[in-house]
């Protein structure tokens, strides 16, 4: 505990040092620029830093390929242009126009997100591309019948901006304004990345369905990603418009978008310092290649392909100090390495205790006549099922019996065609997966759906998403409420992971889930489900792919979950040894219907069950 508290402090120290150093460099920079040309590049690179960070929210964190992003930059620019120029004779102060531009952009982002939130990958890309085209068509053609956008000629000659009486018109003043805003964007990005929002977005990027089944409201989170990115782009647009003193449709076309994408990819999607470095680098570098101007866009194309093929994590992510610091196994505080199995068993022996909880009589989860059809196939038909408080109920049956469909129905991934599902007496039929999790039912997946690119710790922390409430504002301003929730999230995560002993603790905290062994990944899935705070766990083949020793271990562990921590467990399992050891009751499914239920002893002797598993004997 002490060591981690210490390391957290040192991380905060390091970040603060970076911030101060950055401020000093940025404050000095405008005064050492050799000429107006470089001053301009310095300012523009700040605008691109903002733009790239905004795109990093949508494409980097949330993994949404938003090709309309540059339109939000344009919306911001044109909002500024219309609200502080002769175009309509409106002259609002900059301190009002800047938030207005950001807000208008954000609303547009919300609207775009709302229409396309159900689309995935390629479809999303193409729809947003179409939106971007429509936006450009509007900019070009809305000079008739009423002149709004000025058509090809754009809008120019804006009011000089004043901030608290300070006139901003020298390049140096713009440099301060732009980089001040960029700095805010950097701090905001860092903060949001390591918050519940950042983790929620990353979870969606890694596996949207698993994110929903872990309690992340995916539709809302995708909307906020769109809106958040759009807001940053809108603000950048307003500042850019003022700096350039004009806006043209060409400022916001596809080429700009490609450049910003290159910046984000070069830096490594989602990697904040990398993206900042990428933005600065790709603003300055082309200036040296000015003579080869015609080849510039061509080289962007080549850069994109080469990065994707050779270095999909970005060029800059291989620079050590831009990487996340990780606890390495050889740097464990104990000073020596031990086989994780030994540690596990030693701990288990020490903590062996009597059970505090037993099966109760109160029905917790009730299915009434639930059916589900896929086209002509009935996967589940008229199923009644009751799960009692603190019960361990096993569902068995041959392949295709409808076991996994049953889990999908309960966890809200697919709605039932008929019937009701009640939790604690309340109807949860047709609820979204994240609502079901919040109501208290969490699940694991048969074919493992972890967030493979995230650490064990972060995988588990995503589970806490539905139990924390801090919004973007309290995260960005680092309000006490957010800090408190983060602390609690960390503590709870640690507690849960410690239940698995050295299997998931120590250096494994920081390992990517994708790099773990099969059995350990199963454990992380259980840990993630536990972290949601749900008291009912649906475990889909928790022992699949485990060797006999590991199976014994997980059997023991599931029993502990009930006996010591009072969880209620519904599990699907093919290993009948495990089922026999831990089940209070067993339900046998075949062809979507229940054959029988009861104690394992009785079920195992039931002739129908024997027939379902082994077939009938030829007489």
């Amino acid at each position, binding site marked *: 505990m002490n060591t981690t508290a210490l390391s957290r402090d040192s991380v905060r120290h390091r970040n603060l040092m970076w911030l101060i150093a950055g401020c000093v460099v940025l404050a000095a920079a405008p005064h050492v620029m050799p000429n107006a040309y470089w001053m301009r590049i310095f300012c523009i690179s700040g605008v691109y830093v903002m733009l790239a960070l905004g795109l990093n929210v949508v494409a980097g964190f949330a993994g949404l390929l938003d090709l309309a992003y540059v339109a939000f930059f344009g919306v911001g620019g044109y909002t500024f242009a219309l609200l502080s120029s002769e175009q309509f004779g409106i002259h609002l102060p900059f301190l009002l126009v800047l938030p207005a531009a950001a807000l208008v952009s954000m609303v547009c982002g919300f609207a775009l997100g709302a229409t396309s939130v159900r689309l995935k990958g390629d479809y999303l890309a193409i729809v947003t*591309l179409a939106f971007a085209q429509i936006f450009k068509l509007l900019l070009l*053609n809305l000079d008739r019948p009423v002149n709004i956008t000025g058509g090809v000629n754009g809008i120019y000659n804006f009011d000089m901006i004043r901030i608290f009486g300070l006139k901003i018109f020298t390049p140096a003043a713009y440099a301060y304004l732009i980089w001040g805003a960029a700095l805010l964007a950097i701090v905001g990005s860092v903060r949001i990345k390591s918050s519940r929002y950042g983790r929620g977005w990353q979870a969606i990027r890694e596996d949207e*369905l698993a994110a929903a089944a872990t309690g992340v409201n995916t539709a809302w989170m995708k909307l906020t990603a769109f809106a958040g990115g759009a807001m940053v782009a809108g603000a950048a647009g307003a500042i850019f418009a003022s700096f350039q003193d004009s806006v043209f449709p060409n400022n916001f076309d596809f080429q700009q978008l490609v450049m910003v994408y290159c910046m984000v990819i070069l830096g490594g999607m989602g990697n904040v310092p990398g993206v900042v470095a990428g933005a600065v680098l790709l603003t300055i570098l082309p200036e040296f290649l000015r003579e080869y101007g015609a080849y510039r866009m061509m080289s962007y194309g080549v850069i994109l392909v080469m990065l994707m*093929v050779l270095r999909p994590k970005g060029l800059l992510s291989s620079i050590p100090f831009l990487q996340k610091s990780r606890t390495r196994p050889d740097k464990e505080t104990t000073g020596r390495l031990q086989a994780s199995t030994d540690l596990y068993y030693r701990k288990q022996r020490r903590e062996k205790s009597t059970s505090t909880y037993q099966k109760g009589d109160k029905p917790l989860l009730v299915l009434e006549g639930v059916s589900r059809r896929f086209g002509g196939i009935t996967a589940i038909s008229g199923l009644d099922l009751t799960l009692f408080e603190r019960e361990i109920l096993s569902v068995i049956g041959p392949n295709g019996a409808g076991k996994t469909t049953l889990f999908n129905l309960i966890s809200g991934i697919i709605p039932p065609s008929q019937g009701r599902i009640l939790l604690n007496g309340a109807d949860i039929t047709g609820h979204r997966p994240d609502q079901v999790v919040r109501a208290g039912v969490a699940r694991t997946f048969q074919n493992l759906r972890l967030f493979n690119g995230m650490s064990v710790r972060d995988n588990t922390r995503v589970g806490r998403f539905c139990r924390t409430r801090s919004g973007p504002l309290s995260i960005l301003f680092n309000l006490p409420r957010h800090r408190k929730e983060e602390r609690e999230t960390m503590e709870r995560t640690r507690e849960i992971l410690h239940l698995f002993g050295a299997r998931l603790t120590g250096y494994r905290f920081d390992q990517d889930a994708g790099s773990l062994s099969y059995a350990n990944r199963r454990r992380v899935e259980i840990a993630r489900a536990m972290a949601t705070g749900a008291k009912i766990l649906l475990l889909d083949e928790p022992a699949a792919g485990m060797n006999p020793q590991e199976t014994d271990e997980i059997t023991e562990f599931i029993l502990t979950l009930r006996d010591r921590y009072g969880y209620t467990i519904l599990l699907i399992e093919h290993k009948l040894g495990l089922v026999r050891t831990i089940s209070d009751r067993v339900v046998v499914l075949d062809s979507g219907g229940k054959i029988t239920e009861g104690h394992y002893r009785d079920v195992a002797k039931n002739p129908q069950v024997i027939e379902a598993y082994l077939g009938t004997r030829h007489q």
Partner: protein
Amino acid sequence: MDMFLEQLPQQLVNGITLGGVYALIAIGYSMVYGILSMLNFAHGEVYMIGGFTGWWVLHLLYRENALAMNAVAVIALMVVFAMAVSGILGVLIERVAYRPLRHAPRINLLLSALGVSIFLQNFVLTFQGAKVRSFPVAALVPESLRVIQLGPVVFSFMRVLVIVVCFCLMAGLSIMIKSTKLGKAMRATAQDVETAAFMGVDVDRIIMVVFFIGSALGGAASVLVGLLFTQVDYYAGFAAGLKGFTAAVLGGIGNLYGAMLGGFVLGLSEALAVTFFPAAYKDVVAFVILIAVLILRPWGLMGEKSPEKV
């Protein structure tokens, strides 16, 4: 209304020609999507380069005063050259930019495709300039044949030719896919790449063939558009690509006949829309259809709804 009715037959003809071309482009998207489930962003650019190839062939013949040749032969030459160049380009793109990423996350593949598209567009811009190249069609077709009057409808020779070529290419492709061994292998690969590989299908080769055919059809479409509207420029692939994709999605992406149907539906809608909206917003029709289909019926007219496996 009267004016609308008066224009209707003419617009129908225009719509069918346009639709045939869109269908050819859409087939390229759909075939690739059917096998790799990826959106080939570079398809529009392959189309554009096919158009330039056709223009180049025509231009050379024109300069050599060889246009006295039979017009049909010249056009056949243009189409064949364009198909060859586009097809080879498509195969190259697959080899360099997509194959290494076949097992990578989807977003990487898409970005790589985007990169190819940007590269090709700017490659042409750099070496060809932003000039619009016009097809000297007038010198190609004898004046007596240029228009065919049929009641109130005026067919241009080119439109008839375009429709014929479109139908021939589509019929050829259908026959190939239905009744040759290669076609069977392609269908198997589209169903399940891994299983096809286990059954002895050389999947890499099939993917190459698919890219070749899809891209070649795009190239042919581009030449046909060039003959109809007599021009091509470096930016032509963008709009054409979006329209082709719209047609593919409209019909149900991955479904060959869906792509054909989608092409014609889109072509007719656009032709009819021109009578109602200002021409500047013509492209918006396609975008609106695209967005509406994707949101309301993402599996398209003929596609199948496939829920995600859990």
